[in-house]
């Protein structure tokens, strides 16, 4: 299932500018592929198949999405004003800054959704933080 869903998600990502789809939908599809792995084989296996730090992936997505608004800023136009390549690339379609922005959204959605799912199935790693100055949390907040 996973390769199939991944391919579908990329297809969705690329067709999304003028048709239903786009970075958010594509990201959700890809995340669901990974989450299916987690559900089927457990979080450890899923992490072994795709050894990615999803939090960093989300941050990278935001960064990647944000920087493609910058060319317009440097050209003296409002932020996120679109630039397009004049000719569509065969098989991929037209490429411009909005598509690249969508790629950023895609990564962010994958990262955030999968991270949330991982946090729900894994033992918590963020809380409690016993080394912080304040008292550690009781157990009921953990699970």
């Amino acid at each position, binding site marked *: 299932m996973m390769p199939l869903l991944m391919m579908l998600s990329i297809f969705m990502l690329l067709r999304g500018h003028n048709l239903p789809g786009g970075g958010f939908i594509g990201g959700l599809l890809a995340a669901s592929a990974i989450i299916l792995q987690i559900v089927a084989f457990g979080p450890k296996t899923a992490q072994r198949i795709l050894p990615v730090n999803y*939090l*960093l992936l*989300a*941050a*990278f997505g*935001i*960064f990647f999405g*944000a*920087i493609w*608004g*910058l060319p*317009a*800023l440097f050209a*003296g*136009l*409002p*932020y*996120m*004003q*679109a630039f397009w390549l004049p000719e569509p690339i065969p098989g991929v379609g037209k490429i411009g800054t909005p598509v690249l922005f969508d790629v950023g959204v895609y990564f962010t959605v994958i990262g955030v959704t999968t991270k949330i799912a991982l946090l729900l199935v894994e033992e918590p790693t*963020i*809380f*409690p*933080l016993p*080394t*912080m*100055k*304040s*008292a*550690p*949390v*009781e157990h009921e*907040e953990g699970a």
Partner: protein
Amino acid sequence: MVFHLFLPIVSPLIGAALAVLLNRLPLASRLIALLSTLINLGYGLWLMVTVPASGPLVAQASGWLAPFGISLVADGMSALMVMLAALLMLTTIIYSFFSIDYERERHFYYPLLLLLLLGVSGAFLTGDLFNLYVWFEVLLVASFGLITLGGSRDQLEGGLKYVVLNLLGSTAFLFGCGLMYGFAGTLNMAHIAERMATLTNPGLQTVLAGVFLFAFGSKAAIVPLFFWLPSSYHTPPVAVTAIFSGLMTKIGVYSLYRVFGLLLQNELAIYGPWLTLLAGLTMVIGVLGAVAQMNVRRILSFHIISQIGYSIMGIGLASAAGLAAGLVFTAHVMIVKMALFFIGGAAEQINGTGDLKRMGGLARREPLLALFWFLGILSLAGIPPLSGFIGKLILLQVGVSQQAYLITAVAAATSILTFFSMLKIWNEVFWKKSYEDVSRLPRVRFGLLAPGAALVILSVALGLLAGPLVEYNTIAGQQAFDRDAYIAAVCGVDGCEAVYQAAVR
């Protein structure tokens, strides 16, 4: 059209993403936080220099035309707030360098601060009602993270109250947006303002104003809606409390100014007396609430509420002069309140507790800290050469000139109460003899002293050089109250309706 108006939003956004990516290198995320805050500060200063002369600056996101796309608008009020937000964030970041533990840094403390700055700058700059809601959510999510980061029992308890009550306010705001869209058919602030002037359904406008008053009032912690504030603000680290005290409630105030000054100006005549009543109640109840407290930061939290009353009084006076006076006061209180939190927090860190009964003797041990604290409370109370005097004086002058004698009297009386309440901290923390041996306590570090001291010095400077400040805010108040100029700046001289009609045809 100024294309670079996006800078104060883009810089913390990219900064936050980079700081998460480079989280392994603590120094790098510190530097990034510092740098993007400095960019915002510089840009805010530039805006403050430019805007009074040029009128509101406008940028359209992605170049979509005004009533359809999202506009960013920087008028005098926005420029002042963007600058102050960056300045206060800068002091917070410097204070954090010396006070935040490594574990918090590792768990994305600085990215959260940058996200807070992002939300705040966005909220101050946006010219679209729904976009304002989105920025509120951005800054609320960041603040939820900051207030619970560390996950101690106190923090989670305070955080829960904070989250639930703030979400209530946000929901009301969302309802208001929906009602507004159904009523006016647009969410662009300039377009709403234009249509509000022509639409005749006074009842619905009054209801809308009520919904927004509830939504922003709960953010600003005015009287019946302030309970989340004192129950949560003393739980996180000092730096977080300080930046919250400087920014969070003031965003509610800013939004009230914006909504009542621009969108629902007609309603001000109806709401004015009620707003002044609320302002008076907020002042008095806030300061009385502080009397019963025995914890430094809890006392200061109640004083935030009390000071919000003065800012609300500015709108309640329902005139450009009132708004200008309220803005002067708000700017002053943002600076001084944060300074007091920094200094009180430093005292707390020296003593290892915020309990007044167990503190004492710091005046002899840390004379500099005590000196700046004393100047700070003088400024908060409104003693002449300091900025608090200017802020209150102008508010009272406008109050008297508009025959609002009662609120003016209440405001003056509250100042005295504020001073007494602050003297309590002075007596307990600095003046009285400590029961323990003071010489065993750690010395205050320069990094903990400097941010508060710098803000107090700024307050003194603002008091001495009040002319430019008042002049600037008079212009800002006029701009905030001048619907036609705002609409013309956003949509062109013909107004938004003309653009809309041309596009529809």
